[in-house]
């Protein structure tokens, strides 16, 4: 009973808002399952591993989680509309290369025979715009040309990865420290800098989670995202601009991927075109673990963050405990399947209770 009390008072919205107030206890437990799973995992590793709870390890863990969680935030929007974005991993890679190229080689305008080196802030701005444009490309394919989201973003996955390889013939842009003479130094700070003892990436994750939740809950755009995923036709007849809103979800996903691209490139101080491979799968796993329905309309960003932490704690703990990486992969898969099975179970329970 003690555990239950902790959970209900924690009141983490792991599931859709607007559930009945007097839900039976097992329904509440089911709703908070991702959070409960996280607490159990956390408790388990805290007890059985000496090094797990060390501040250093927790920061490393959260840094890893941040990457997945930021991608998951964008992914949540897309999945809430009933779509999916498989291209985020490739966007991470391409955006890293774009930023690396702009720092090391500048923007080459061969027509005018000039090379422009940008200030580091502009480099980051351009990189983010690049990510958003790719997201927009996905969105246009899905909304204007009615390409199924799975296929559209699968195509973009290949295109973006290919472009990342093409940019520098498959080679890395190393040593992205910039040149004081060109005025583009300071990029590594993003990955290495700290505020109040925590790396920037963790702060960025927190900020994006808060802003993302606010947009989802408190703006017409957010409300319309949920409506589109729940019943596209009813949303359309209520005057929701389904195409524009859906497109924006993909742009947001592209934005988040670009942010992750910058963070990783900065952490490594070099841009490699293969960065971000299979990141999309981790992001989708985090969203699903967080209780967002793949058919759209149900889910929260808070849930996704918890989902990302579940994956993060699980892999970090297993690494510390020396579980073979092969087994880690198997266990991750089992956890994802369990999560979806529980989700189905909960939906059936909800239907029965009316």
């Amino acid at each position, binding site marked *: 009973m003690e555990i239950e009390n902790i959970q209900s008072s924690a009141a983490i919205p792991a599931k*859709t808002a607007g559930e009945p107030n007097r839900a039976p206890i097992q329904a509440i437990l089911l709703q908070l399952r991702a959070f409960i799973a996280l607490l159990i995992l956390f408790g388990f590793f805290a007890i059985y591993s000496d090094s797990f709870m060390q501040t250093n390890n927790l920061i490393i863990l959260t840094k890893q989680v941040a990457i997945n969680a930021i991608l998951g935030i964008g992914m949540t929007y897309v999945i809430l509309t009933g779509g999916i974005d498989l291209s985020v991993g490739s966007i991470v890679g391409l955006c890293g290369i774009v930023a690396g190229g702009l720092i090391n080689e500048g923007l080459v305008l061969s027509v005018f025979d000039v090379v422009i080196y940008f200030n580091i802030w502009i480099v980051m701005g351009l990189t983010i715009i690049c990510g958003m444009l790719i997201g927009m490309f996905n969105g246009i394919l899905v909304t204007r040309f009615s390409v199924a989201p799975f296929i559209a973003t699968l195509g973009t996955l290949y295109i973006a990865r290919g472009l990342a390889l093409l940019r520098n013939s498959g080679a890395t842009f190393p040593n992205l420290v910039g040149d004081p003479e060109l005025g583009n130094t300071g990029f590594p700070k993003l990955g290495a800098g700290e505020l109040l003892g925590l790396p920037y990436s963790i702060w960025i994750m927190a900020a994006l989670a808060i802003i993302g939740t606010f947009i989802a809950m408190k703006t017409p755009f957010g409300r319309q995202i949920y409506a589109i995923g729940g019943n596209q036709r009813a949303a359309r007849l209520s005057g929701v*601009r389904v195409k524009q809103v859906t497109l924006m979800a993909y742009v947001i996903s592209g934005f988040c991927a670009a942010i992750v691209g910058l963070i990783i490139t900065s952490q490594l101080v070099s841009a490699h075109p293969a960065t971000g491979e299979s990141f999309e799968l981790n992001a989708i796993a985090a969203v699903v673990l967080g209780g967002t329905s793949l058919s759209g309309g149900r889910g929260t960003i808070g849930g996704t963050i918890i989902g990302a932490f579940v994956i993060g704690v699980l892999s970090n703990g297993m690494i510390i405990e020396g579980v073979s990486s092969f087994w880690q992969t198997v266990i991750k898969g089992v956890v994802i399947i369990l999560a979806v099975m529980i989700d189905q179970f909960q939906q059936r329970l909800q239907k029965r209770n009316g």
Partner: protein
Amino acid sequence: MNPITDDIILHAEKVQKVYPGTVALKDVDFNIYRGKVNALVGENGAGKSTLMKILAGVEQVTSGKLILNGKEIAPKSPREAEALGIGIIYQELNLFPNLNVSENIFVAHERTVGGSLVNHREQERQTAELMKRLEQPIKPRTLVSNLRIGQQQIVEIAKSLARNTQILIMDEPTSALSNTEVEVLFRVIRELKTQGVSIVYISHKLEELLQIGDYITVLRDGQLIATAPMPEINLRWIVENMVGRGSATAYTPAAHEIRDDALRVENLTLPHPGKAQGYLLDHVSFSLRAGEILGIYGLMGAGRTELFETLMGLYPDATGDVLLYGESLKGKSIRERIQSGVMLIPEDRQREGLVQTLSVAHNMLLASLHNHLFLKVVLSGRKEKNSVERHIEELSIKVSNRNNPIGSLSGGNQQKVVVAKALLTSPKVLLMDEPTRGIDVGAKEEIFTIMVQLAQRGLGVLFVSTELKEVLAMADRILVMSKGRITAEIPRAEATEEALVAASAIGHELVKAGV
């Protein structure tokens, strides 16, 4: 009733069906005569489909008996009914468009070689035989998606015949057919009769029943009202029995002042998608005045829903003009039309009216989010709460908490949420498509009261209904539609059931030759 019992193939005795909360059928006796077309009519909710489902094994009786050829039967599933020789063709055909004709006919009853391999050659031979029997030039290997609706219906009939059907139930078989296709269907039905197949024929098209039916049974409010051999009765008899005399409508709308033109529709035309000719809407013109309740009556497929959807801007390829207080809505999107003051309450609450994953409050606010902002971008919880609680109160929506899921409400209360959603957009003209479909009598009257209140406030209310009584009781003026055209405009004082039924059948008359 006919005393000769030996040509009755199936006799339903004192059939009763009780659903939680409602009695769908009360002690209904129903005979199906061997080798005859047994017509079954009644308004929506009269119990036709329940009776049909009981015969077809989809539903089971609460009490009463079904006697087939002298033996009592109780089919527990469509498959059991099929084994007893009872087949059904639903209005929405149940064919697989991606399979060919013979594959469809033998689906789940495949002719096999050695029990596991499908014997396509045998199936195709039998299909060809069936088509010969029906005198239809449909090839066994044609993909069903390449067939016209009328031909698909023939395939459904063949499917039933392949299962040795003695009793074939047809639910609104002509609702999607052209006149020529109807003729073909009638020819097939006559052939089936000579082969001893008994038909139960359900239709709203009364003229059609007079032509094809041998016996007619009228249901109203779950009760058997009358049954007679067709030659003894006429259209007037059917309408009177269907609608009921005297008892009439309990509801009389309160007075409301009718003012100037609110909505003018000029030559609205919508071509049939995918067809070279034919219109879903054929040069529709009318006007709706502020404070007026204008009813539209018409059969399934008359173009009522298409009219509303076109007015909302769902069909960009529609031509003609729509003027709202003199301002043209041409080229405007759904959103812009809603902002101009036109709002639709769709026919299908579940599919088009509500988002099931959202709460009561969020559903209600969905169309008017821009009116509930704080600093122009953020949703104001206070404004939202005020609007929602005000409408829950005004429309007396029974819900304990506005954040409850929409699915936890009864049909009538869900419909009121849809109405509230529309009202929150501050409409000048409200389009209500079958606003009382699937809700109980009490909720119906509440919806009527709301309609009158809106008219009193000066809204133009345009509503569609397939229920004669409802249209006659509520409307200040009635437009009748048939085949995409307006076939009659009748003021309240002159409106009669017969006039509406007659006008709704215009364009459905069959070529008399060969009948």
